[in-house]
Structures are given as structure tokens and as C-alpha cells.
């Protein structure tokens, strides 16, 4: 068994002058304090990567800087799924008796630490160097291809996709740490500049500075215990050219494995935290995970299903689309928000019941998937 005992999240947006290590340190400090732990209690450490600070040993660079000497530490790289993959690994390290308190950290000055072009180019490298990158695609183009096909097969429209941007923005308006604070409408999304068809600027998550951290422990350290019920992964391809058909993507495989491992059914879930790098990502994942019927997710958004007071509150902090996306920390914000909701600390964003949560991360171009279930122990 393992428990998420502490979380920390920085505001996302611009942190002018802060380095990757600065942002990671600040998030880690918050998570430690939240768990009521000291540096000396941490015997396991996991971190992701940073495009502004590439390093072959980021975990030990951070550990030395932060002042911890764990008995187990390394960085891992699973693109956007890194945060969820780290949480899964931390859970397994604790369950396996390797560590008692695993600190998990992601952070990057992705917005102010490099030019916009450098950021776009670094991310486009998830494509195949010879067979894809040479054609000049961008991440929005990879997802634009997916969106084009998904819309074709399931009758989803651009206006449908826009609903997800509007929902995430509405949620972000209630969180002071979010990158965006201006309300938007479907018309605003539709009128925003085209990036790569059918995706427009407001269909895409921003580039942000930020950081997030959590602690996974063998025993609860606070009054309310949030237990990791289990997690599972699926990796079907790296490059979109080599992806399986839409019906065979990894989200469905990962969630099926997670359900089998934990015995949790989708009908048990009360809160959802789902990766939303683009509106199409969120629409597809909700449907792949079984949180909406095929082609029906947008209708559920319109009906208020995924709102704070709906039947399945979703990314109440605003998600990648409107809280922001700083790389590894991006989807870790989903996990932090889930923990706040489950422990009743989400303030004006608090949902009625977050007793069982489903989290899902995606890396690459729907390449790598991690599904996880959390439960509030009664």
C-alpha cells in the first residue's frame, strides 16, 4: 500500500529569473511541508527532465542542491506522461519496500528559459528524425492529424473541441495560480489563430514556467489518508506514423489494466484528472477511458457533467489548457489538484465528493499512457 501524503504546486505562467532547479526546489519544499516531513525523511527521489536544463543525472543534481541523500534516485522520461509514471513508480517502490517516503518533483522554466521557437523545436523532436521531423511538423500538427481523423470517424466538430478549452478556462478562473484569468467562449476559440488545422491557438495548451511535487509514503502522515489503489501503463508506439488505429490506442489498454489491477469500475469514480495538452487530447482520452460515450464527450461538457458541480468534476484547476504546461510538472498539477479535492482543501473549487479519483497521463503523440486510481480512506 502507498499513500500520497503531501503535494506542492507553484503558480504557472512566468517565473522570470527562476531556473529548473529553483522551480523544482520550491515545489519540493511545499510538498515536504504539506506531508509534515523533513529532508532527512526522504529516502526515495524521482524527477523528470527539463528541456531548458538537459542533464544526464538530473535527480542527483537536484538531490545535492536540495539537500537530500536518498537511497534510491533517478530521473525518468515519458514525455507528458512522466508525472503520472513517476507517481506510479513511487507507489511501486513504496509497495516493494525500496523506500518509505518517495519525493517526486517536476519543474521547468520552459517559458522564460528559452525562445518560443526553441521550445517548439525541442518538442517536435518526439517525431521521427528522418521520416517525420524533416517534413516540418509541430506538436500541434501531430495532434492536428489525430484530430482530423477522430473528427472524421466519430463526427466530432471543431465547436465540440472548443467546449473543452472553454471548460478548462472556466475552471482556471477559480484558481489564483492559473496562467490565464480571462474568460473565453466557443466563439473566441473558433476565432483564435489557426496553428495546425483543425487546432487553433485556444485548442492548444500554453508553454509555462512552473513546478509541482508530491510525496508518496508507506503510511499516511496526516488526518486524511489518500491511498494509491493501483496504476497501469500502455505504450503502443512513439511516432504518429506508427500509431495503431484510433480503436487501439493506449488509453483504453492502460485503463483496462488499471481496472483489472484494482477492481475499480468507472462508475465508482467521482473525480477525473485527465491529460489535456490539446482539446482533442482531452476529448479522445475522456472517451477512451469510458468517461463519455464515443463522440459524446462534448455534449457532456455542454450539460455541465465535467464542471465543479457536475457528476464528474474534471481538472478543476484548469488543466494544461488553462492552468498551464511546464513540461513534467504540467500533468503533476492534475495530481496535486486531485489531492486537494480528495482532502477537502480545494477552497472555492471544492467538489462535493472526490472519494475515488481516476488520473490519466499521456506522453508523445498518444504514445505512452498511465492510468491511476486513488481513494480517500474512510
Amino acid at each position, binding site marked *: 500500500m502507498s499513500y500520497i501524503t503531501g503535494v506542492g504546486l507553484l503558480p504557472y505562467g512566468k517565473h522570470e529569473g527562476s531556473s529548473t532547479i529553483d522551480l523544482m526546489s520550491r515545489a519540493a519544499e511545499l510538498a515536504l511541508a504539506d506531508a509534515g516531513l523533513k529532508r532527512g525523511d526522504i529516502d526515495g527521489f524521482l524527477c523528470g527532465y527539463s528541456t531548458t536544463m538537459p542533464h544526464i543525472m538530473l535527480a542527483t543534481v537536484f538531490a545535492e542542491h536540495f539537500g537530500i541523500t536518498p537511497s534510491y534516485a533517478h530521473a525518468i522520461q515519458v514525455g507528458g506522461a512522466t508525472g503520472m509514471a513517476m507517481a506510479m513508480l513511487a507507489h511501486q517502490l513504496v509497495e516493494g519496500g525500496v523506500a518509505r517516503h518517495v519525493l517526486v518533483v517536476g519543474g521547468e522554466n520552459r517559458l522564460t528559459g528559452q525562445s518560443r*521557437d526553441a521550445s*517548439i*523545436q525541442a518538442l*517536435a523532436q518526439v517525431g*521521427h528524425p*528522418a*521520416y*517525420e521531423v*524533416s*517534413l*516540418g*511538423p*509541430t506538436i*500541434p*500538427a*501531430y495532434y*492536428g*492529424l*489525430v*484530430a*482530423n*481523423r477522430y473528427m*472524421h470517424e466519430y463526427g466530432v466538430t471543431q465547436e465540440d473541441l472548443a467546449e473543452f478549452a472553454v471548460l478548462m478556462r472556466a475552471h482556471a478562473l477559480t484558481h489564483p495560480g492559473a496562467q490565464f484569468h480571462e474568460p473565453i467562449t466557443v466563439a473566441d476559440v473558433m476565432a483564435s*489563430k*489557426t*496553428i*495546425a*488545422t*483543425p*487546432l487553433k491557438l485556444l485548442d492548444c495548451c500554453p508553454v509555462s514556467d512552473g513546478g509541482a511535487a508530491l510525496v508518496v509514503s508507506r503510511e499516511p502522515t496526516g488526518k486524511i489518508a489518500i491511498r494509491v489503489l493501483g496504476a497501469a501503463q500502455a505504450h503502443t508506439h512513439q*511516432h*504518429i*506514423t*506508427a500509431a495503431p488505429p484510433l480503436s487501439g490506442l493506449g488509453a483504453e489498454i492502460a485503463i483496462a489494466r488499471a481496472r483489472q489491477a484494482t477492481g475499480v469500475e468507472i462508475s465508482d469514480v467521482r473525480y477525473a484528472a485527465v491529460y489535456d495538452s490539446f482539446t482533442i487530447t482531452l476529448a479522445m482520452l475522456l472517451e477512451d477511458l469510458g468517461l463519455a460515450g464515443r463522440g459524446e464527450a462534448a455534449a457532456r461538457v455542454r450539460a455541465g457533467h465535467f464542471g465543479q458541480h457536475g457528476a464528474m468534476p474534471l481538472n478543476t484547476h484548469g488543466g494544461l489548457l488553462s492552468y498551464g504546461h511546464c513540461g513534467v510538472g504540467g500533468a503533476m498539477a492534475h495530481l496535486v489538484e486531485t489531492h486537494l479535492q480528495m482532502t477537502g482543501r480545494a477552497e472555492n473549487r471544492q467538489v462535493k465528493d472526490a472519494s475515488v479519483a481516476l488520473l490519466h497521463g499521456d506522453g508523445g503523440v498518444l504514445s505512452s499512457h498511465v492510468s491511476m486510481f486513488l481513494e480517500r480512506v474512510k
Partner: protein
Amino acid sequence: MSELKPAADWTTGTEAISFQCCRACQSIQYFRRSFCAACGSSDLDDRVSSGEGTVYATSLVLRAGTPEARAHVPYNIVLVDTAEGFRMMAHGANDLVIGDKVKAGYRQFTGHLVPFFERSGS
């Protein structure tokens, strides 16, 4: 493992689309390797595609990532299912839609050759 010769195709500046066919298990693969990704055999046959196929998906890029690519916008990134059975990424005419029957030609893009699909007559 046998040494892999560079492909004589668009990735090395030749107007062709090549792929590999495994003599052991008959699997085909587009991303060139010294072995068959399906069965591991190194007995691979180099083949050249007819350049004919069907559009699987398109995305017209208006915001490019590099100054060199920006000179070409808008350009259409397409996934094409070739007649030989593999999927490939390429450029295509801006008005292509899913299901269009297409045929490959070639164009220059940021200083190198890329396949460019246009609607075929039929």
C-alpha cells in the same frame, strides 16, 4: 546483425519512397532498420513504393517551428496509407481530404526533398 545501407529514397535525396519486406515473415516496414521489427529476421528485401495511396489524415500547418519552415506556410502535413500497406507522413496539396486517392510527387522543403501527394486522376 547485418549492416544497414542508407535508403535510396527521399530521406537521402532520391525521388522514391522505399520500404522493407521481410523474407521470413512477409511483414512490411517503412521506418528502415537492419532487422524486421515483427520477427527479428535480418533477411529483408528493399522495395520501392508505387507512390499511390489514400489520405488517412491531414493537418495544414500555419505556425511553423523554424524560420526556414515558416517561409513555406501554409503547408499540409498528411498521413497516407500506401497501396503497399504501410502508412507514411508526407506533404500534400492543401485541399486534400481524408479518403482522397493520391499519388506522390516531390518538392523541395527547407533545402531538402520531400514527398508531395496530389489527388490522382481516378
